[in-house]
């Protein structure tokens, strides 16, 4: 049974040093409050897998020294420009980068949810993305003739972590149409979800709602974190805090400014 945790820290116990942690893209529901809690705890050597891209979350974790390996298709602050701590870490050779392309990550997670060892994907051939991924193999389509196609090993994260609008006490999580969260949870050994609020009833009872549910069967722990995606947006609930993101982009441009940001917005719990 999923644990309805009393605190974020308790819910995050499965995110151990060195674990493979899968996280969601900005528009799907990013567990930012949980991310700040992980930084406060000082988690180390994460293999962070962002499905399929990341923004503030990866930049913060990298800047705070929590990441050893990053596997994703892109890290950027969108309209606020390049992700400064990601960029600095790459230039310094401080993290190992497994560059991917969005559909490759989706396909590799889908392979894991099917319990098969790999997924095939079109594209990629002739790119340096493929050239830098010795773990990806090109084969000749066994059903065709002279038709090369790339195979991607399944991605099986230790933990998937995201933020959603609500869950019930059985750990059923309403994700609406952010359905890559289902794939992510199916692929991961354990899934931790933070939610805006707990729902008193059974979210699986109404078929209209049930179609948008991640069943509690897949969920390890749930914690309530109001505005838990902020300053990033939560679809249909609140928009991005643009002033905050602009301030982040300005501060994180330097190591000193980033340290000040961490002090103000991560380590000062009242602000977090």
């Amino acid at each position, binding site marked *: 049974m999923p644990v309805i945790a009393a605190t974020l820290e308790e819910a995050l116990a499965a995110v151990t040093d060195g674990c493979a942690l899968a996280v969601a*893209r*900005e*528009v*799907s529901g990013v567990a930012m409050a949980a991310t700040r809690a992980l930084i406060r705890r000082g988690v180390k050597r994460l293999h962070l897998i962002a*499905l*399929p*891209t990341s923004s503030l979350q990866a930049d913060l974790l990298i800047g705070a020294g929590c990441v050893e390996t990053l596997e*994703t*298709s*892109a*890290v*950027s602050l*969108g*309209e*606020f420009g*390049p*992700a400064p701590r*990601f*960029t600095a870490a*790459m*230039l*310094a*050779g401080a993290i*190992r*980068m497994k*560059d*991917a*392309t*969005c*559909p*490759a990550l*989706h*396909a590799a997670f*889908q392979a894991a949810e099917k319990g098969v060892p790999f997924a095939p*994907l*079109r*594209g*990629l*051939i*002739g*790119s*340096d*993305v*493929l050239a*830098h991924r010795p773990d990806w193999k090109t084969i000749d389509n066994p059903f065709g003739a*002279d*038709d*090369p*196609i790339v195979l991607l090993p399944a991605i099986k994260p230790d933990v998937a972590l995201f933020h959603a609008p609500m869950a019930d006490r059985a750990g059923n999580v309403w994700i609406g*149409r*952010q*359905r*890559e*969260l*289902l*794939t992510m949870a199916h692929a991961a050994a354990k899934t931790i979800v933070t939610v805006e609020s707990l729902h008193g009833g059974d979210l699986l009872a109404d078929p209209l709602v049930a179609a948008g549910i991640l069943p509690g069967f897949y969920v390890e722990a749930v914690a309530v974190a109001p505005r838990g995606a902020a300053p990033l947006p939560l*679809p*249909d609930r609140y928009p991005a805090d*643009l002033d905050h993101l602009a301030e982040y982009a300005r501060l994180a441009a330097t190591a000193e400014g980033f340290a000040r940001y961490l002090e103000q917005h991560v380590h000062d719990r009242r602000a977090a």
Partner: protein
Amino acid sequence: MTGAPPNSAFRDEELLADVICRLIGDARHVAVGNASPIPATAALLARMRGNGRPYVSLLQSRKHNFFTDGGRELFDCAGQGRIDVFFLSGGEIDGEGNVNLVGIGDHDKPKVRFPGSFGAAYLYYVVPKVILFRTEHSRRTLVPKVDFISAPGTSPANVHRTGGPIALVTNRCLFLFDRDRRRFCLASVHPGQTVAEVLDNTGFDFDRPADIPTTAPPAPQTLRQMREIVAPELAEVYPQFAAAVFGIDRSR
């Protein structure tokens, strides 16, 4: 850019969106990825003019996005040929249509790092009309050979490839891409620019017909449609851009 009479003055972004809208042509489904406010403007303009055709999917939008099966649905759609037009940019673009979204120098410890390839290493192969755009037209961005190929402009005959580049739109000009010859051809030069300036600022070799027209400026009606109908819709996804270019207040 200069040369337009004051009563139809337009911004660079509006000219580029108009050029891209014409390149979209008749399509059923146009998808727009991350960090592409000018292509998004063009796609929404095309949809407005076509009374709902083409379908437009803005990847980061809640409202202008009909997908219900997660982030993979766009790519699955593209793999089946259900997306006709997409847009790509690049930190570097070369004369063979190769794009670099990753970086310059050693991959593990680069001199310059860009955000990453996003969906390019797949979509460039399977979307029939990919329109390249880059608002900085310089020898730094348009290079003889990209340092990292996020996605190649063309592929050998045995590689499954139903898509690829058709054009490159910059702040200076419009190039069309010839897939058989693996080269760009200068199609028009934007108002206020010259062929000599385009040559000076392009790092790769390209074809130049004897007579190269000036890009037509956006018609007054086009500008009105962009500013009054498209811009407010754009603000959901690109609030900064909508504010800077169209004066849309993000708090509305």
